[in-house]
C-alpha cells in the first residue's frame, strides 16, 4: 500500500487532487481511497488530505500516520511547527515540495534525509495559465507512482471534473503535463511499489 499526505491551505485544492489521484488509480486497476481532514473550514488555514493506493481492497478506515509520500502545495507550510510536514514520513519516503528552491536548499532548510523532489509548481502553473499549483504536483506524482497511474488516466479524470469549464480545463491539462514532464526530465523516476 502507498499512503500519501497532501498539505495545503484551504482553497488550494489539496482535497481535489487527493481525489483525482484516487480516481485515476481506480481507472488503472488499483484500489484507492481519498479523504480530507476536517477541522474548522477557513480559506487559507492549513489543511491536509490523504490518498491510499493498493493492489488489494483497502479496508482501513483510520487516519494515515506514516505516509510514503508527502506533498506540500504551499512552501510557507514547511517551517510551520504546528503543521509538521515531516511528521511520520517514512525514512525512505518522498517529500514533494512546491518551491523555487533546489532540493539541496530544501534539505538544508528542513533536515529531511529521504528523497526530496522540488518543483516550482507556482511558476509552471502560471506559465500554463492557471493560478493553481495543485494540478502541477498531481502531474509530478503521476510520474513518481507505479505504472497503474498513467498520465492519460489522470487527464481523463481532470476532463471529467472540469467538463463544464473548457477554458480552465485547457490550462489545467497544460499544468498537469508540465508537472509530469518536469519530473520525467529531471531524473529516471524511481517507481514506488504498492
Amino acid at each position, binding site marked *: 500500500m502507498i499512503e500519501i499526505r497532501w498539505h495545503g491551505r484551504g482553497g488550494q485544492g489539496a482535497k481535489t487532487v487527493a481525489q483525482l489521484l*484516487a480516481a485515476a488509480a481506480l481507472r488503472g486497476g488499483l484500489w484507492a481511497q*481519498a479523504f480530507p481532514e476536517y477541522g474548522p473550514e477557513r480559506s487559507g488555514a492549513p489543511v491536509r488530505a490523504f490518498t491510499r493506493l493498493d493492489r488489494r481492497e483497502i479496508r482501513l478506515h483510520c*487516519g494515515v500516520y506514516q505516509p510514503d509520500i508527502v506533498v506540500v502545495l504551499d512552501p510557507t507550510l514547511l517551517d510551520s511547527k504546528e503543521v509538521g510536514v515531516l511528521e511520520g514520513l517514512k525514512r525512505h519516503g518522498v517529500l514533494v515540495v512546491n518551491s523555487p528552491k533546489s532540493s539541496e536548499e530544501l534539505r538544508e532548510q528542513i533536515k529531511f534525509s529521504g528523497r526530496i523532489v522540488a518543483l516550482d509548481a507556482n511558476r509552471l502553473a502560471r506559465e500554463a495559465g492557471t493560478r493553481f499549483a495543485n494540478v502541477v504536483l498531481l502531474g509530478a506524482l503521476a510520474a513518481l507512482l507505479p505504472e497503474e497511474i498513467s498520465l492519460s488516466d489522470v487527464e481523463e479524470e481532470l476532463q471529467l471534473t472540469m467538463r463544464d469549464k473548457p477554458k480552465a480545463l485547457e490550462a489545467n491539462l497544460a499544468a498537469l503535463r508540465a508537472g509530469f514532464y518536469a519530473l520525467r526530465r529531471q531524473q529516471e523516476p524511481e517507481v514506488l511499489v504498492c
Partner: protein
Amino acid sequence: MALKMLEREERTLLTGAEAAAHAMRQLRPAVVPVYPITPQTPIIETFAQFVADGLVDTEIINVESEHSAMSAAVGASCAGARVLTATSSQGLALMLEICYIASAMRCPIGMAVGSRALSGPINIHCDHSDSMMARDAGWIQIFCENAQEAYDLSVVGQRLAEDGRVLLPVMTIQDGFTITHSAEPVALLPDDAVAEFVGEYQALYPLLDTDHPTTQGPFALPDYYFEIKRQQVDAMANVGGVWSELQEEFAKLSGRYYRGVFEAYKLDDADYVYVILGATAGTAKVAIDRLRRQRKRVGLLKLWLFRPFPAREIAQALQGRKAVAILDRALSLGSWGPLYSEISAALNAISARPVLYNYIYGLGGRDIRPEQLMSIVNDLECEANADVQRFIGLRE
C-alpha cells in the same frame, strides 16, 4: 448458498454520501423532505443536484427544521408516497419525537444517517451516539462498513421497509466523515435493475385515495395502545427472515451477498471475537489479519442489523468462544455500552457463555488504528478483569 462474485466490476470513486445519494436517486422517491446538517449535508446536496438535473422526479421539501422534515415525511408517507430523507446527530435528536410516530404509523420511510456525536460538547465528528439514541424508536437500523455497503444496504433496506410483512421505517447508518466524506470505489447497479428490484411503493391505505377515506394517527387509549405496540413487535420479528430472502435476491442481481444478519470474518475457529459496528470493522479486519499471522485465533462479528437485534444468531455464533470484546462507539452513561448490553442479554440463552469485555472507542471522532485494536487481544488472553468498562485511545 454459494454465489460467484462478478469477475470484474465497473467501479466509480464515490464518497459514502454520494453513494447514498445515488441509491436515493435510483429508489425514485416521490417526496424527500430535508434539512441540512454536517456530515449528512453532501447526501442531500448530491441528491438535490440529481433532481435539478432532471435525473429523478422528486418533490424536495425544504423545511425549517428536522422536526418538520420528519413530520413532512410522515405526512407524505401516509398520503401514499415513497419518502426518503437524511440526517445526523442533533438533527436526529430533533426528529426523534416524530420518529416514534413514523414507526407506529407504519410509514416505511428510508433515512440515511451520517452518524455523528451528540452535543455536548458540540462536535461534528463520528460516533454512534445519535443512532443509539434512536434505537428504541421502532426503526430498522442497518450499520454500514463502507461506501459500497451504504449504497447496497440503502437499496435492500428500502425494499425491506416496504415489505408487507414489515412496514417499518429504516435508518441506513454510515460513519460521519469516515465514510460520508471518504471517496472509495463503489459498484453501482444499473438504474432499471434497482427500479425493478425495489418496485413501486403501494401504500395499503393511502390518504390520497379519497374513494376509500381512512383516519390515520388517532388517539389510542389504554384500550388499544398496547395492541398497536404489539403489532410493531411482530413487524420487527419478521425483519430477519425478509432480510435474508431479499439478500439472496440482491446477490443474484449484484454479485454481492450479505449473508446472514452479520458478517462473520475469520470467525469459524476463533477463540476470541471482536464485535463491531460500522467503519471500524474494516480497520479491525486488518488488525485480525495481523493477529492471525501471529497465530492468534481471533475473528470478527460485524453487525449489519442492530434493530432488530439478531440475538439468537449472535448467541449461536458466540457460544463456546473463550472471550468476546464488544466495541461500543457510544456511551449509555451510568451503564455498559449499548452493544454490550444487547449481547450480554442475548447470551442468556446459551450455556457455554464466553467472558465479555466492553471497550468504548472513537467518541467524538477520536481515531482508532489497527495497533490499538490488536492490543485488545492481550486483555482477552490473560483473562483480565472483565468487570470494568475499558476505553481505547483515551488520555487519562
